[in-house]
């Protein structure tokens, strides 16, 4: 059932692979892409949650990719020095990745399945919705076993 649902979602979503967002190093992994900026309070608030997500689920094949979007590099660096995330940070100074992913708010996250297909997206970050988001990522991880 979940597979069928995933397939429908896959067909519906206009698999927007930006030339700027290179997911090829993460073949066979579930990728959680998060667009964030230091000036965005809910983005900052999501970092400890993403850290826990990454440390808990990386062995099951999850990659957390945090894209610093249209931010002041100094502000971003100051925040990262404090947050010290263990997941991957890339930058998108002009917002090209955000544009290609069709971000409608900040933060904006997109989940890609093990085949590199876009499965779902989320706008914003609330503590009360975070556990459900985590469960859906776990479900996606366990429904599709790691192939490599």
């Amino acid at each position: 059932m979940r597979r069928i649902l995933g397939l429908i979602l896959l067909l519906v979503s206009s698999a927007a692979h930006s030339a700027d967002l290179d997911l090829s190093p993460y073949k066979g992994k579930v990728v959680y892409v998060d667009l964030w900026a230091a000036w965005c309070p809910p983005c900052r608030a999501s970092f400890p949650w993403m850290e826990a997500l990454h440390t808990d689920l990386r062995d099951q094949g999850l990659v957390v990719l945090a894209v610093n979007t249209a931010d002041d590099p100094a502000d971003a660096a100051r925040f990262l020095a404090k947050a010290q995330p263990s997941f991957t940070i890339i930058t998108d100074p002009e917002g090209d990745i955000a544009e290609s992913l069709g971000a409608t708010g900040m933060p904006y996250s997109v989940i890609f399945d093990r085949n590199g297909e876009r499965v779902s997206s989320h706008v914003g970050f609330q503590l009360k919705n975070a556990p459900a988001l985590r469960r859906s990522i776990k479900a996606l991880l366990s429904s599709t076993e790691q192939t490599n």
Partner: protein
Amino acid sequence: MRALISAALILTLAGCSNLGVKPWERGTLAKPEMALDSSPLQTAFEEHIYFSKEASSGGRGFAGGGCGCN
């Protein structure tokens, strides 16, 4: 006159759909000093002073602008 104001208002509102920024372009707007009311505590003090010294008071607006996050 009334019609003119209405027309101006409608044009302004219609123009609004072309105004604005992408969600990730709000870095400057998100700065505390760019909030429409950047110090509510200070505003409350002022409103109280002018309320007790002048015949008009209030009328200030609401939230909006800013980070536009979530």
